[in-house]
């Protein structure tokens, strides 16, 4: 079994923390993993993406081939659309619905929503409001991770929770709990869809 995931967003939105949690869980489960990150100039408010590949067999390429991604997890709705050619036709998009408008020519939200609605398997959620609702306003990324856990398959939700516990442990129990709550809120939302 393999899961190829594209993490998308805007520099500074915390997509690498999602990757770190998944990576920790994958390492613990003895899965193969490759994760290509974007560092440098693009991190300054530009579009960023990370290719995250998980498999129970060896993985060759650090990059996902076209049409190979099972899931796109995006912190920003327009960014979710940027990588469609990488998404398998039966793949999932899990996206935050709150736009980040740091460019003058950001398209009309209606157009973005229309384009997203065409995707066969879509989970769109206001991750920021949901993070606030569980008193963890900075954990929108964990809400999204939770929402994707329902379709992750290769890693059980509990393994991802363990990943959160390990990654945030040094920040204290309160932070761990806040992130777990955000994760569970996303997972619950996704399961109800």
């Amino acid at each position: 079994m393999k899961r190829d995931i594209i993490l998308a967003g805007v520099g500074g939105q915390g997509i690498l923390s999602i990757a770190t949690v998944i990576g920790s869980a994958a390492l613990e489960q003895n899965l193969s993993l490759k994760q290509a990150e974007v560092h440098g100039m693009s991190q300054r408010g530009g579009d960023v993406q990370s290719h995250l590949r998980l498999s129970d067999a060896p993985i060759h390429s650090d990059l996902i081939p076209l049409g190979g991604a099972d899931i796109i997890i995006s912190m920003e709705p327009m960014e979710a659309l940027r990588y469609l050619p990488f998404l398998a036709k039966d793949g999932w998009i899990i996206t935050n619905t709150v736009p980040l408008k740091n460019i003058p020519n950001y398209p009309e939200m209606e157009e973005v929503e229309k384009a997203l609605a065409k995707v066969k398997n879509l989970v769109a959620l206001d991750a920021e409001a949901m993070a606030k609702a569980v008193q963890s306003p900075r954990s929108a990324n964990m809400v999204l991770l939770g929402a994707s856990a329902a379709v992750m398959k290769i890693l059980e939700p509990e393994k991802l929770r363990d990943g959160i516990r390990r990654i945030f442990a040094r920040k204290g129990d309160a932070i761990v709990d806040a992130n777990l709550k955000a994760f569970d809120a996303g997972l619950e939302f996704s399961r109800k869809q």
Partner: protein
Amino acid sequence: MSQKQLLLGDEALALGALHAGLSGVYAYPGTPSTEITEYIQGHPLTAERGVHCRWSVNEKTAMEEALGMSFAGKRSLVCFKHVGLNVCADPFMGSAVTGANGGLVIASCDDPSMHSSQNEQDSRFYASFALIPVFEPSSQQEAYEMAREAFDYSESRGIPVMMRLTTRLSHSRSIVEGIDNSAARTPNEMHFPANEVQWCTLPVNARKRYRQLIKDYAGFEEDAVKSRFNSLTEGPDKSLGVIACGIAYNYLMENFPDGCPFPVLKISQYPFPKELILKLAGMCKRILVLEEGQPLLEERLRGILPHGVEILGRLSGALPRTGELSPDPVRKALGLPEREGCAPSEVPAPRPPALCQGCGHRDFFTALNAVMKNYPKGKVFSDIGCYTLGWLPPFESFTTCVEMGASVTMAQGSAFSGLYPAVAVIGDSTFTHSGMTGLLDAVNEKSDILVCISDNLTTGMTGGQDSAGTGRLEAICEGLGVPKEHIRTIVPLPVNYPEMERVIREEIEYHGVSVIISRRECIQTAKRHAKK
């Protein structure tokens, strides 16, 4: 106990170097190489063993410092991005002549597709130019193992070794196994070269040494034929032979999950093993060359392969001439059917990087633009760093950016040609890297230029590394001979715009070398400091 860890390619190389008994890393930050040095800086073995890990002023000083450590018998690592190799080309070429005493490994990280760079030069050309062997890992695991072997190889053959990484490996994370900190090799004791003569490159010595180096190079090639990192794998379908260099091997195998039907020569150690290439050409009449970066091997094969062997690659048009490889163009070159995903969407607008909100460069450019509006014949020359983003809207504050330090010197050349006002904008770290020497030229020439140092107290673009001149920029400029009254300091904040504009105007009106230091901490490092 042996462990496994998730590591970036950069980190795997760094850890391999530490475990090889490293005594010092010398580097200047540059994407995608920065994480090598940062990993060493943060590793417990570094503190325990007193490994040198402070950033150097530029790549040339780094390379020379590392060469000095090698001369003294210890193992040293130099790291930089590909264009850093241009900055240190002189000592790099020289190091092939001196040879290495303690193991000397040069990690040069190329950036095909120019994710964060101004060109896509391929460091393997430099290595071949200098007659220096190259190790080019295809995975994080290989990066770790090769770093260890590269040091042994450098020491046993008495030659510096290049490790060439590209962005995709530098910045991709994977599992590295067999990590054991307690098995790290003990660093060398100081000991000087048995043959010190070749370390003084007077013509009389260099001529002799160069002939020896050419002989040695033939031996390096024999080593590459036997290397465990180079392998020729048979395949049933001889209609095509594939040569896959470094990370390109992964893109080949990605397209054949059940194994490649063609004979494959995987190359990760150079000089390239001619013997293995000829063996492959003996089996196949068509050869596809997959290499990340520029078509080095494809070009050279033309002089080696027998007549009638067709060579496919970036030059033949089988692969794109520019940009990094990925599974899909390689798939096309292999003649396999294209893969298809969801239809692309027209909706997303480009989202280029931009200066951070609250960044001091923003306020500086705003004030500079307001003044330059009154000098429509003037030109602004800029440089490499975050502030290069000031070329983009809404600022569009300058015309040129070429390489580290060129703002000061190009302003000077244009001023001599009659341009007024000629203004240079350079960051603090870029100024100490390569701007100071140009400023001395300007002072000696009494050039009519204004140099603006946009000082954010850090090396910002690469993530906030220490900047070599922090706290001493005024003293440096004064020492270089800029008149004290024409070294002005401003604080880039909206509330200060009138004052900033007045100072900029005054120094443009002064006909001589003047320096304005626009100083406010990088917003990113300030946030980090506030958290602590």
